[in-house]
């Protein structure tokens, strides 16, 4: 809470996508919320709306969320035309109402893509991401208790840090929702890069990149045309460099 400052309250109009289930036709519906504190998170504002709807006996707005601290990747709202809303480097749950003004109208939609069908209201089905990971997002090592010592292969700090930067992807899908082609290259590139940068990932590198990319295409994600919108909207700062690295890996794999 800010010192020396009066609390600011806002009245807002929300235009929200409502859709009963995957088969129903959706539509935008207007709602009003009042006395929203600037210190609320965006999802706490949505809680206020839902409490209001429940008390009136109406169906609350379904949305995905869990950790509410920007790490689980559940939350997924498309707010005023941007995945995760107007702030940079944050997920929907980390967005705060101080980014908005009294009297604003806020448009809230689900992440849209052919490969992310709507389940209900703002909840989408991201199991296409699961299937891409299942196609090769792993290193084939069994749990045995006699794996070689963790320090037996030194890894340069630089490579380890870079692998970590790629591994920070939370699988939210904002990159897909922001892309005019609904491409999943940033998401897939991040996983391919993490393993490509580590010695443990080398053995299966060629198969991995081929299989993951093939599955990505099969799921109906679009092509990358280098617009870079994904990188801008990615809450975890996953860099386009990962897409370039994936393309290089793919080239290597096809030689």
């Amino acid at each position, binding site marked *: 809470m800010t010192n020396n400052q009066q609390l600011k309250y806002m009245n807002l109009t929300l235009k929200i996508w409502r859709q009963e289930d995957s088969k129903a036709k959706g539509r935008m519906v207007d709602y009003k919320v009042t006395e929203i504190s600037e210190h609320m998170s965006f999802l706490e504002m949505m809680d206020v709306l839902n409490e209001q709807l429940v008390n009136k006996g109406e169906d609350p707005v379904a949305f995905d969320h869990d950790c509410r601290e920007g790490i689980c990747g559940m939350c997924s709202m498309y707010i005023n035309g941007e995945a995760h809303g107007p702030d940079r480097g944050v997920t929907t749950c980390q967005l705060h109402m101080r980014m908005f003004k009294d009297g604003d109208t806020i448009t809230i939609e689900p992440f849209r893509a052919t490969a992310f069908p709507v389940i209900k209201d703002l909840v989408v089905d991201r199991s296409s991401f699961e299937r891409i990971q299942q196609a090769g997002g792993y290193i084939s090592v069994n*749990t045995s208790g006699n794996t070689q010592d963790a320090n037996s292969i030194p890894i340069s700090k630089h490579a380890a840090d870079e692998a970590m930067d790629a591994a920070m992807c939370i699988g939210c899908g904002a990159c897909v929702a922001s892309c005019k082609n609904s491409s999943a290259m940033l998401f897939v590139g991040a996983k391919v890069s993490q393993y490509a940068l*580590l010695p443990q990932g080398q053995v299966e590198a060629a198969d991995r990149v081929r299989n993951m990319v093939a599955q990505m295409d099969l799921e109906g994600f679009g092509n990358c045309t280098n617009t870079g919108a994904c990188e801008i909207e990615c809450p975890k700062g996953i860099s386009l460099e990962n897409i370039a690295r994936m393309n290089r890996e793919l080239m290597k794999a096809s030689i």
Partner: protein
Amino acid sequence: MALNSKIPEGPIKDKWTDYKNHINLVNPANKRHIDVIVVGTGLAGGSAAATLAELGYNVKAFAYQDSPRRAHSIAAQGGINAAKNYMGDGDSTYRLFYDTVKGGDYRSREANVYRLAEVSANIIDQCVAQGVPFARDYGGLLDNRSFGGVLVSRTFYAKGQTGQQLLLGAYSAMNRQIARGKIEMFNRHEMLDVVKVNGKARGIIARNLITGEIERHSAHAVVIATGGYGNVYYLSTNAMGSNATAAWKIHKKGAFFANPCFTQIHPTCIPRSGDYQSKLTLMSESLRNDGRIWVPKHIEDAKSLQQRKMKPTDIPEENRDYFLERRYPAFGNLVPRDVASRAAKERCDAGFGVNATGEAVYLDFAAAIERYGKTQAKIQNLENPSKEKIYDLGRAIVEEKYGNLFQMYEKIVDEDPYKTPMMIYPATHYTMGGIWVDYNLMTTVNGLYCIGEANFSEHGANRLGASALMQGLADGYFVLPYTIGDYLSNEIRTGKIPTNTPEFDEAENDVKERLNFFINNKGEHSVDYYHKKLGKIMWDKVGMSRNAQGLISAMAEIKELREDFWKNVKVPGKLDEMNPELEKAGRVADFLELGELFAKDALMRNESCGGHFREESVELDGEQKGEAKRNDKEYAFVAAWEYKGEPSAAVLHKEELEFKDIELKQRSYK
């Protein structure tokens, strides 16, 4: 029923090896005919599911999120302990074992903790082989940091996202098995009951959270790995969906619940800012390495801060009370979590809180910035550096160490913690209590196992930092796969478990009846209304400081609230659709029962130990005056509660704790 912890005979360091040498095994061909259900795919359940599938069992795994990668383990920041002794600072299996037992205030089972310390090194090897990008030093070797309450550096980490990276490792191992068809993954499914046939756990009833369909799943054994119950307080650092339903349901079917009152309240969380607050955010323990905790010395200054007539930087050094340094000169700001939390509460209760709600203390980095700045100036040979220069140099160091946490704080609070001290307050974080299990991690129900935060086992009355991740992965990768095999070796002739039996009918009917009630009850109040009320009772009377009178009234109030809930709760929507309010209703209904047992356990345990502080049990004089007083004569046992129709009617079973390898001692941080 007498509790049998099934601890193997022999010296502590040989128990686990001897045990593994003598258990029954299942041959690979037979494993193909055995099904195992794993409920929960966080670190514990995810690692168990992957390993059991690798061994050849057919695994069905369940999670309420849309992917195993989203379990709350993902949120763990700080790190994972392992006795690798890579730093050469004298670490060993014994030392990790000792630290964990002492840190837990001597309320855990020695044999289990020793085994945990023993397998800890394997965890790091396994994770590195999976491609977990742990932090490394310039020589390319793994780096370690130190955590509270110990004298060695044994914590492995991946930036401030260790839990995420470990979970993604377990998730990748699961994905490999899902692709091979050895794990069938049920995302967006919630377990609503366990099914017992002839005394053995044989399956579960689950709700498909997309369609609302009620499903039956059978198996030869069931593993519960559903995490902790901190959300009984409504506000906690847990995820919104974290719940006790699976654990509570198995408790009602015969699994004893152990030490429910052992809960960890973490000292450094971002304070509440208003009634709309939905969750609390942790600021890593590592901050206490450099931050100094204080409140004003004078009550008038505190009043001015509360009314925002004054800024913390207006208060001169001599008018600040660094209360941890004052009370605990030896450990200062690095006392264990339970001690730090209570001290902050004591100051705030006395009126010295520093924000509008009076529930916050400062965590100040100004001294650290200056100290680092001066050192840097020396290193760079700057003569008479200006104040600004020192600040800039120091700030850069602090930024390198804690930059992501400072940024997270600023995003939430909208204040720059480099310029003005952070405000922090304790919040519910972790539950040491949970389902009672024996050495095999089996509950008091045959064939029903419980692992990870959901069980009670290794942390006694207080958990040390970076030990929960270690426990979850130890259970799932290295312990359960052996112990469950011993049990399943008797199941090779059983054949597939049918689901069209009266036991499944009955369990499914019970589940449906309850869901129907929620939808059809035309009540007045939302589920959150009840959850918030429960949270307030728990926090006020069963929180950081407890007394008999408060606990007795908490039990009565919770019971009353529960009765009101069952009359007046209002749940919108339908059964056969995605319905988050309906999901919450079931979870809160279970918290309303668990909360009462929690208070009952706290009332029974008339001693202060670890996170459980009874005002009646404090040192009355001497150097430790006013500090928590443990009572080993009367309470050196695990309290395992048996369900008897109502939480208040639960029957206590004691597992006496024997300390053969570690001497019982009072903790001192003075």
